[in-house]
């Protein structure tokens, strides 16, 4: 019995030792991992330009323990400051006039004229190279009488002193068959487009350095573009486009005195021209099927009103921005199917757009018709609310004909509507007739107003104000699929009738 007890005890002890060994082994592995990973982590960074007033210095930056380090000697040599590198003491002394700055290896404490300055990260001396954290530039080097340095966490560039760096804003948007990259710069620039078709890349070289991009990379991916990023690692600012196989053409157009650029990525089969550049040849007309009547309205731009933060009118269960987008998408499908026309939406997602950008989509794509969709909201819940709006006749006329020379200097862009005011009135009348047939009782009077979205649209244009979201029953009807289909079908009927009544286009 004793023997059995002792054996059982031994087995138990063995088991305990095995288990303890396992725990010890795990702890040892964890310790080793911490030792390996916890040590100074290094990663070679890309180039890091410092822009001075009339020159630039491109450095190789290194990231050590999540801190960006710059090679210090290169900077002080560039600035022309004398220095002494005491290898035995592991100190570096930088001089400027009577001032003296001493830094020590592995220490965040630096001495400026015997005054102690504490850096957030230590200075490092590795392989004969002194590495300084970026903060050293302002907290240390700038005290020697040099310029102040401007640096934002994240981007890999520094601006020294008063060097002017205009802000660069990039934005990308899918606009139906094209993808548009909009670039806005605070100062006039020139873009040079270089294509590398073999690698599906395109580079837009900016002729001005430096620029300060708001974002280094745009989070936009679609069937034309894989990535859009800003790069100035070699001191030359450029925008890199990583494209897909589908892109055949890239059109570049500038506006606002070379401060605003539109880069349109176009598929090979598309027949539209997205660029308003006057030097471009006229767009090739699409091949018209001989059995079909000639289409006079070939490109239609539909503008779903509001979007993003701008919700528009709010009904009990629906907001104007959502309703207009639903209707616009349906209308696009019906118009493409029925007319075979190219139909573009000014926005195809819940984003905010200003009115000028909306009509610019129509102008830049040489649209033959521009329809802005809105939902009504009347103070009176019993009001029908619906209307068809066109631009107010002679709007802005008196303001521009003032015979002061200053007025003649600028282009009154909001007068773009005048070119097609009559055709717009005709389109509105056709639209009214069709809508009264299928949606009787909703009113749809043709009204005129000084509308921001139509004022600069240089083609027949109208704005549909549908329903009254202040009326709960009306708002519910607007959300019914059957009603929406009937409504967009009717609008498509009107567009078709208008298209047939239009004189054939010149091209």
């Amino acid at each position, binding site marked *: 019995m004793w023997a059995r007890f002792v054996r059982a005890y031994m087995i138990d002890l063995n088991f305990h030792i095995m288990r303890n060994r396992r725990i010890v082994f795990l702890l040892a592995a964890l310790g080793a991992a911490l030792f390996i990973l916890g040590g100074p982590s290094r990663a070679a960074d890309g180039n890091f330009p410092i822009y001075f007033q009339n020159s630039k210095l491109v450095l190789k930056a290194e990231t050590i323990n999540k801190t960006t380090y710059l090679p210090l000697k290169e900077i002080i040599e560039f600035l022309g400051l004398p220095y002494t590198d005491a290898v035995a003491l592991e100190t570096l002394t930088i001089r400027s006039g009577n001032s003296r700055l001493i830094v020590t290896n592995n220490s965040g404490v630096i001495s400026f004229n015997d005054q102690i300055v504490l850096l957030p990260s230590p200075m490092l001396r590795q392989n004969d190279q002194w590495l300084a954290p970026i903060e050293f530039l302002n907290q240390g080097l700038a005290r020697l009488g040099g310029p102040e340095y401007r640096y934002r966490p994240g981007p890999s560039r520094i601006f020294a002193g008063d060097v002017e760096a205009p802000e660069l804003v990039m934005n990308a948007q899918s606009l139906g068959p094209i993808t548009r990259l909009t670039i806005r710069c605070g100062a006039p620039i020139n873009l040079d487009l270089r294509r590398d078709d073999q690698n599906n890349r395109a580079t837009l070289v900016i002729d001005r350095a430096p620029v300060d991009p708001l974002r280094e990379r745009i989070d936009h991916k679609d069937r034309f573009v894989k990535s859009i990023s800003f790069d100035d690692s070699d001191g030359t600012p450029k925008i890199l486009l990583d494209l897909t196989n589908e892109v055949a053409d890239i059109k570049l157009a500038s506006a606002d005195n070379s401060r605003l650029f539109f880069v349109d990525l176009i598929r090979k089969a598309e027949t539209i021209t997205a660029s308003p550049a006057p030097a471009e040849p006229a767009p090739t007309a699409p091949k018209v099927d001989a059995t079909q009547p000639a289409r006079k309205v070939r490109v239609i731009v539909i503008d779903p*009103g*509001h979007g993003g933060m*701008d*919700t*528009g*009118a*709010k009904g009990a269960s629906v907001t*104007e921005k959502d309703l207009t987008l639903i209707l616009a998408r349906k209308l696009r499908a019906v118009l493409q199917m029925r007319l075979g026309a190219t139909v573009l939406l000014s926005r195809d997602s819940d984003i905010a757009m*200003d*009115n*000028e950008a909306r009509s610019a989509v129509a102008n830049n794509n040489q649209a033959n018709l521009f329809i802005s969709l*809105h*939902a*009504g*909201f*009347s*103070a*009176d819940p*019993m*009001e029908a*609310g619906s*209307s068809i*709006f066109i631009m*107010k006749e002679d*709007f*802005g006329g*008196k*303001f521009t004909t003032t015979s002061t020379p200053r007025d003649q200097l600028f282009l009154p862009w*909001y007068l773009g509507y005048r070119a097609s005011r009559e055709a717009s009135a005709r389109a509105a009348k056709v639209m009214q007739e069709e809508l009264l047939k299928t949606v009787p009782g909703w009113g749809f*009077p043709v*009204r*005129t*107003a*000084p*509308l*921001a*979205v139509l*004022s600069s649209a240089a083609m027949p244009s109208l*704005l549909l*104000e549908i329903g*009254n*979201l*202040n009326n709960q029953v009306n708002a519910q009807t607007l959300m019914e699929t059957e009603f929406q289909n009937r409504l967009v079908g009717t609008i498509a009927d009107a567009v078709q009738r208008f298209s047939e009544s239009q004189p054939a286009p010149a091209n």
Partner: protein
Amino acid sequence: MPRHIKIGLIVLAVGFAVSLGFFVDIVGRIRTMVNERETEENPFTPPVQPLYSPTDPPITAKIFFPTAGGDALLTAEDGTIFKSAELANRAKQILQKVQEGPHSDKMFASLPKDTKVQDLFLSEQGTVFIDFSNTISINHPGGLLNELATIYSVVNSLTYNLPEIKQVKILIGGVEKETLAGHCLLLVPLEMDLSITDVMPRQEQTTAADAGPAGRSQ
């Protein structure tokens, strides 16, 4: 109850009443001090000037408001203002009437809640610049017809009653804004538009229009 407890309770009650009195007094003093400081911090608050003097004769002005039903977007109701010497003061009186809203229940208020006129000034060419508070945009319920009604109730009320005012330029929050609620362009000064109302042009305005711009002055 023993006598000493009664006396104790009475003393406590008296003490409580006295301390309550002190507390109320101190709170009152702190309030007046804070109020005094606020007025001290803002010593440049301009005194409110009366918009008219007691000798100014009353005149009837047509104030435009959105209407319920009917084809017209706006209709007008009569309001009384005083013919003050300064045109800006007359314009301010009219804007006060627009802000007050209609008296008839067949009309609606045209300006959103808490809308204030921050400033108003006139140019020599007959353009009145009105700077509305941001609330005119923030509190606006939206809808194109609504926005049109808000804008033209102001524009028409001013230009109809004060022929010296030819155009109205609306500023919001002290700056030029493209639109008020996303639809109507405000970059250009706006003129009177009676086509959206059921009001006929004034007699002198029709004759002035016939006679040309020179005949428009009152």
